[in-house]
């Protein structure tokens, strides 16, 4: 598998970042290097190995359905670039 400029552009779009032409080229190169490395691993026979998503054997970690205090409104909004009457204010979104 090889990454091309269009794929880099698509990833940038999904990540909401803007890339310059130079950066695009740089990332094509870097990502392909990473994939090249992964390709080596692909040579291993993993047919009878289940995909592993977790490195520890621990499972079933829960909390009880018990209330904990929330945080004060002023702390909630403290980092917000814009607020209005207790709400976060964001650029208009209509889908």
């Amino acid at each position: 598998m090889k990454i091309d400029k269009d794929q880099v552009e698509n990833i940038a779009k999904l990540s909401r970042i803007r890339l310059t032409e130079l950066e695009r080229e740089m990332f094509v190169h870097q990502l392909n290097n990473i994939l090249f490395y992964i390709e080596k691993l692909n040579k291993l026979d993993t047919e009878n190995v289940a995909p592993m998503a977790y490195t520890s054997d621990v499972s079933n970690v829960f909390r009880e359905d018990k209330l904990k205090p929330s945080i004060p409104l002023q702390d909630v909004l403290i980092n917000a670039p814009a607020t209005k009457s207790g709400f976060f204010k964001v650029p208009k979104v209509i889908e």
Partner: protein
Amino acid sequence: MTYEVVIGLETHAELATITKLFCGCSTKFGVEPNTQVCPVCLAMPGVLPVMNKKAFEYALKAAIALNCKIDEFTNFDRKSYYYPDLPKNYQISQNYHNMGIDGYMDISVNGTISRIRIHNVHLEEEAGKLIHPEEVGADYSLVDFNRAGVPLLEIVSYPDMRRVDEVESYMQTLRKILLYTEVSDCKMQEGSLRFEASISLRKKGVDRLGNRVEIKNLNSMKSVLKAIEYETMRQRDVLDRGETVDRETRLWDEVNEKSARMRSKEESQDYRYFPEPDLLPVLIDEKWLRAIKDTIPELPLIRRQRFIETFALSDYDASLLIDEKILADFFEECVKILNRPKSFCNWITNDLLREVKDRKLDIYHLKIKPKQLAALVEIIEKGTISSTIAKEVFSEMIQTGKDPKTVVEEKKLVQISDEGLIEEIIIKIISSNPDAIEDYKKGKKNALTFLVGQVMKETKGKANPKIVNEMLMKKVGV
């Protein structure tokens, strides 16, 4: 051209936990914006989610109640997308190992049972709420994260429905199951139960499904049905013109009763699902599964059938009773005390429901108790009060929670069966209504009804109507 309409539904139900899915913030509805949030549900850097056990068990319970296959291994996945109501920029959901798969739910349409297959049931977190100001030219939206992180159950059906009456029954039955299992309060007006429909048309006899259109923004069961009818007509027109239906997502406009394109399949999102590394998997053993199973009560359709068979109720009456679990429970309590199912059914489905509606009572906190209704039915049978008076007594009981005997004594409502007393009143009524007697003798039968009415009026409805009737007939000489 005749087409077959193929309909599937996606249902979202907020689970009835006190706290959110991954943090201890309250799930209470209708509070001031952003007052039920914390670093976890606001997605501050470095925070970690911890699963609410009750939410997990509720989701499991629903999956079992919907006859799903439950895998012993389950975990959670990240679904990535950007939207201002989603603080982490991904939603924790289930994609590769759902809570349950390949289930089914039986629905009843006009007495015919059909089986709708359930594709999967999974647990995920709710998004925040966006508010779009109505002021003209407003260039902003407002975000409230109180709802963000509330546990949400998603139930995906197979496209097994063909008609709107099936869709309606599916929604009603599913709502009842969620209420019976007590996993959700299903308040549609608060958004705790929401539906999305997918619709496609195909020529009769053709196997392959047509292009599917998803409809969002359906705020009530009524709008689901309206949107399906609209979409069926729209697609039929497209196909009749020889064109193809675009695979797309459309938004329902409740005011204008039509839908508009939201996004096409080409623009559809790439969610890049992958296993959530911040949560550990959950293993479900037989013992746990059985313990959850044991908490599932008899489900509505089965209960309805039992009511019809055991208590000889009509399909209609039984359906009314099982509609609300609390009413069906009330009914069964009454029958346990006194074996008069038909009578209790009438009291509950007529008088009780009317009083509840007229006086805006909360059926979950009724003052009247089953043993009191049983006592009322008992004193009617004994003849202590007439059935007309009983209605008055019942109304007082439901408002105050008093025993029927207390109400009867306080209001002096005991039925008059003393023949001497009734005779006195009859003589009085006859002498003051000579015209009616004449009419009756001329053959006007309803003159007698009039006289009975006069006696009842004189006794404020307390005279035993049977005795009044008999004595009057004797007096006027029949």
